[in-house]
């Protein structure tokens, strides 16, 4: 058994949330292992552990039979592991050749001074570029390259340090078809040179085509691991969704009406979204599902006025929006809980009270002066209504709260402004189970009081449990629409993956 890489019983938790549970896998020399799973299944965490970015709470990683504690990316690189991230770590202002060598340039001495050995650099760079099949000049600035070309540079970088194990994370997301084919032929060539790879991707067809073995991760557990022949589209998808039916969702009665509070008509932005149309009715919870990169957050940002759109209209409460800024949206009683609460949803160094005050402040003021008493009262009221404890409300620093409480602070902030339309982007990410349940209760209360809610989520169960209707997005378009009677997790995943008819 020539396992070049083995993972044994690795566990990892963040803030008391278990992200990886007893995960094991093995990679044979010269093989390509496909790793599939939904968003949030734990793929990134696992790869970050292998790449030396994170350390596991328990379990071990063995490279060529030797147990290793990988402290940092350099350490991982020294043992031959290279992690090609989705967000490439290249310097756009340097040339291709320079990017290949940046922490350790080959040097020579001129009059005693260490100077870049350009000849060696150029030679080696040309060799590497040839290896990866990139026919560009070594002097091109990385900033001028397309995402596909940059990725090849990143792979060349890995080959430069003699990586024996390459981890490719969603490599085809930003590639054109042509570039993807180029990548695949490179992968074949590398395999022939006995380089082992872990290939993480949503593109199941590619996984089936390229990989020798496949493993499926679900909810932090490795639920299947075997040769390619044991898998098919259908089996992969059903393994990913699983029979995970925890009664997490409070019972709800649909109160959806036919009165649209938010409408999107022919929304388009070149390269991002194309001809989006949908309606969000009063009292309704509309779910939006899509894989990473499908365009869900981009859509939400456009609706809220954070990003511009080239064509189309956003209609709020029957009125076509003339201005598109967050300030206008807030005035039109639209609320947006973003994906990234630390950077965009909260003022981390400020107190809970200040955070809750952020949106609704003008409503509690007179002639520009804040009505402190009424306001303090309102803040307490709304904070309690979302379930924040008294001590949490008094907290002087939001950053010391748990993820669940932080999210409640964000929700209080918006609820205080009494919105008519609420857009939630991954609201329960990084939130513990108890708080999750409470947040679902808040969502239900909101729509039962007449609000309209757009729920963007990567967790299919969450959508199945909470929504009246579900939209599925893929590649910037809405590709499927399910009403409650049609709810089916396999259909949703199939639409999201673009798997079409099951083979």
């Amino acid at each position, binding site marked *: 058994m020539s396992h070049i890489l083995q993972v044994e019983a690795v566990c990892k938790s963040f803030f008391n949330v278990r992200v990886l549970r007893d995960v094991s896998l093995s990679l044979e020399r010269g093989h390509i292992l496909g790793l599939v799973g939904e968003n949030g299944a734990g793929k990134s965490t696992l790869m970050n552990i292998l790449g030396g970015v994170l350390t596991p709470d328990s379990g071990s990683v063995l490279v060529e039979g030797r147990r290793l504690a990988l402290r940092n990316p350099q350490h991982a690189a020294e043992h031959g592991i290279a992690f090609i991230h989705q967000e490439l770590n290249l310097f756009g202002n340097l040339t291709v050749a320079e990017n290949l060598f940046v922490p350790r340039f080959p040097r020579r001495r001129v009059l005693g001074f260490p100077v870049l050995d350009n000849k060696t650099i150029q030679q080696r760079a040309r060799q590497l570029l040839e290896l990866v099949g990139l026919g560009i000049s070594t002097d091109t600035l990385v900033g001028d390259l397309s995402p596909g070309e940059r990725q090849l540079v990143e792979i060349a970088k890995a080959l430069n340090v003699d990586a024996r194990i390459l981890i490719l994370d969603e490599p085809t997301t930003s590639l054109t078809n042509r570039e993807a084919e180029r990548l695949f032929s490179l992968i074949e060539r590398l395999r022939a040179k006995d380089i082992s790879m872990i290939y993480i991707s949503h593109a199941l067809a590619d996984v089936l085509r390229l990989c020798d073995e496949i493993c499926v991760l679900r909810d932090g557990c490795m639920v299947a691991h075997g040769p390619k022949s044991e898998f098919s589209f259908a089996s992969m998808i059903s393994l990913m969704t699983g029979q995970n039916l925890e009664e997490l969702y409070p019972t709800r009665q649909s109160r959806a009406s036919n009165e649209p509070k938010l409408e999107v008509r022919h929304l388009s932005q070149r390269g991002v979204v194309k001809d989006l149309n949908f309606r969000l009715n009063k009292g309704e919870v509309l779910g939006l599902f899509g894989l990473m990169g499908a365009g869900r957050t981009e859509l939400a940002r456009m609706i*809220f006025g954070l990003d511009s759109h080239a064509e189309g209209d956003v209609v709020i409460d029957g009125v076509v929006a003339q201005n598109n800024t967050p*300030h206008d949206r807030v005035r039109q009683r639209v609320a947006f809980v973003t994906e990234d609460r630390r*950077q965009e949803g909260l003022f981390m160094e400020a107190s809970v*009270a200040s955070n809750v005050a*952020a949106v609704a*402040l003008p409503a509690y003021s007179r002639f520009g002066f804040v009505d402190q008493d009424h306001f*303090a009262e309102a803040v307490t009221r709304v904070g309690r209504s979302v379930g924040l404890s008294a001590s949490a409300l*008094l907290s002087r*620093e939001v950053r*010391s709260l748990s993820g669940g409480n932080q999210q409640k602070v964000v929700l209080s902030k918006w609820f205080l402004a009494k919105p008519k339309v609420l857009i939630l982007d991954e609201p329960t990410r990084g939130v513990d189970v108890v708080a999750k349940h409470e947040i679902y209760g808040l969502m239900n209360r909101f729509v039962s009081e007449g609000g309209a809610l757009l729920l963007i989520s990567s967790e299919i169960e969450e959508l199945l449990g909470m929504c009246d209707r579900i939209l599925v997005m893929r590649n910037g378009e809405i590709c499927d629409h399910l009403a409650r009677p049609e709810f089916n997790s396999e259909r949703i995943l199939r639409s999201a993956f673009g798997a079409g008819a099951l083979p």
Partner: protein
Amino acid sequence: MQPKSDIQGAGDLQVTTFASPDSTKGESTRDQVGDSRQSAGNRISRLLFSEYLLLYLIAAYLVVMVGLIPGLLSAGNLRSVLSNLLPLLVVSIAQGFVLITAGIDLSVTAVFACSSVVGGLIMTADGGWLSHSPWSVPVGLAAMLLVGAVIGFLNGLSITLFKMPPFVVTLSTMTFFGGVAVWITRSRNIYELPRQIATIGKGSIGFVPYALLLTAMLAAIAHLVLSETVIGRWLYSVGQNSKAALISGIPVNRTIICAYVVSGVCAAVAAILLTGRLETASPIIGQRLLLDTVAAPVIGGVSLFGGRGKIRWIVFGALFVTFMDNGLNLLGLSYFVIMMAKGALVLLAALLDVRRAASTAQA
């Protein structure tokens, strides 16, 4: 009324009356360890991070200095300290508003000069535009304030609309309007200003100088705006996290422009004070104050990173700088030692700022 917290934080709302002034613990996972050594360390860091540190230092400084300089606390000297303090304080407040939004205004001294000069040109008895007219003083004063507002608006607009960095924008306006001031006066001072201006600058009502009244009023208004108004909160939010502020529906661009306009107007007010005191409108007035206007707030604890700062901190900082200048001067220590001391202080204040940011940062 609810007790306001003294410790760090930018004008936080008090939610209930339970918040004790010294509480820095919310739902923190830090344990209340009864270890005496740790609480002593805690006490020291609380002292260091306390906003009244400067006042303690000033008091200590005065105690030490009074021994060396008998005349330090004499009426004459205190008057001198006051007259140096006031213009610096007003311009530091101007700078403070901008610092809170995580910006910088290098043009405050240029506004100072331009404003002074415009006022002088309107009001001077020596061929001024409105000389000898009963309107000269009100129009002159209004014009001075307008100059500040316009320059501030230009700064704010460039920064928000054109997305240019505040440093370069205010550097350009500083060069430009500083040059304008020198140009329209041909480097000459303007004398023979109306009596009223001198009164504002030097006169008193009873024992209280008008200048002090004006400054105190300005500081009070600034404090009110920052701690009690909506726009004040918006200033802090924009400085802390402009992305989150934008998403919360705060009109970020308008807020930033406001900060720079306020800065300009305050600088103009300082110009009124100093022009009045000197009874001269000068194109190079207040030039050497520029870096002091950044040093005073920073020493007082206003963060260059934005989002933190209180008027009283700026007052303490300006007080400290002025007293230090004054004391070291009286000691016969030269200008350069004072410069060095100022440099060392700014350094210490900044190191403290970094420590404070690091100690509350996420692990």
